[in-house]
């Protein structure tokens, strides 16, 4: 099997989607969503990163081994941040316990 060639139109579409994502990031940042401001920012950034990885970086057309490798990297980082934050986010709970 030879290398998969992604058509140029796909690249232009992804480029457009990324620009729209950037505009949405800025728009949502200026609207008061309370605690959901950061959620919106990270969800949009996550989708943008996903588009870059999937199409610009050709992961969609790569071997399953490469896909697993990529997933391991990002899952690792997600775990590192979330496990660290289970500590910091819950420290105050002890203080306010009746």
């Amino acid at each position, binding site marked *: *099997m*030879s*290398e998969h*060639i*992604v058509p*140029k139109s796909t*690249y*232009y579409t*992804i*480029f457009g989607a*990324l*620009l729209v994502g*950037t505009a949405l*990031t*800025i728009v949502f*940042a*200026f*609207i*008061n*969503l309370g605690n959901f*401001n950061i959620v919106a*920012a*990270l969800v*949009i*950034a996550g989708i*943008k*990163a996903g588009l*870059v*990885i999937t*199409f*610009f*970086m*050709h992961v969609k057309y*790569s*071997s399953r*081994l*490469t896909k697993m*490798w*990529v997933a*391991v*990297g*990002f899952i*690792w*980082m997600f775990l*590192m*941040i979330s496990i*660290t*934050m289970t500590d*910091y*986010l819950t420290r105050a709970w002890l203080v306010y316990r009746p």
Partner: protein
Amino acid sequence: MIETETAPERIEIHADHHPHLAHHFESMEQQREAGTLGMWWFLLTEIMFFGGMFTAYTVYRHLYFSAFAAGSEVLSVWWGGFNTAVLIGSSLTMALAVFHAQMGNAKKVVFFLLFTVVLGGIFLRVKYIEYSDKFAEHVFPAGDYRWPTGEEPAGPHNPGDLLLMLVGLEATHHPGPMEHGLPVKVTTNYSEEGPYYGTGGQIPEQVQSDSMAGHVRLYFWFYFVMTGFHALHMLIGIGLLLTLAWQAWRGKFSREYHSYIELTGLYWHFVDIVWIFLFPLLYLVDRHL
């Protein structure tokens, strides 16, 4: 495609396979797969490198949110948004360079690699302007650091300003508060002491011990270290792209053999992804009015 120079005796030994196939690989396909996997292995170490900083950022943003919000407001959303678009554009041109490499179209490969370099250069030019302004406002966290700044943050107020500042026709630093343009909250309410001018670079002790000033300073450490390492990656990327453009011009690559372009593309896109997260996390902490 230009023929690769090969000594006559080597042609005999290597006649049955592509001249760029290393002997420990079965086929060009396997060689390419291994290269991609190896590059991702490297990018995973890069995720760990930036991941540590993102984790530390998350912890301190949680602990000192109001300070991070105040520090963030000193940055210019115009510059940050513009640079995000420029970097996304450079990812597009990089992807097109890889596309033309797969097509074996050497001239277009050179064109799009250099296009990517130009966009990377514009990004770094903006970063230079931003850094200069932050130094002028004394928010660089080492040396002559002062908080609150007591000044309206520098930066463009509209696309026209932005273009003029980009080419250096207009100074970006406006000392003193200004009325026109976007509404900007002047952050002077965090310290009783007020801004410190004419202190000869010496920070009064009460400011150094002021916790808000210290926490904002921590935010600026994150800003300068994270964007600084990102810019360093951009510089390395530009060096790689220039080398590739030269090699492509000399006819090194072909339809069958262009791994270096593909793998440098992976690196460039990865650096783009880092910025996609840095932009909202550093520039847009708590912007809503």
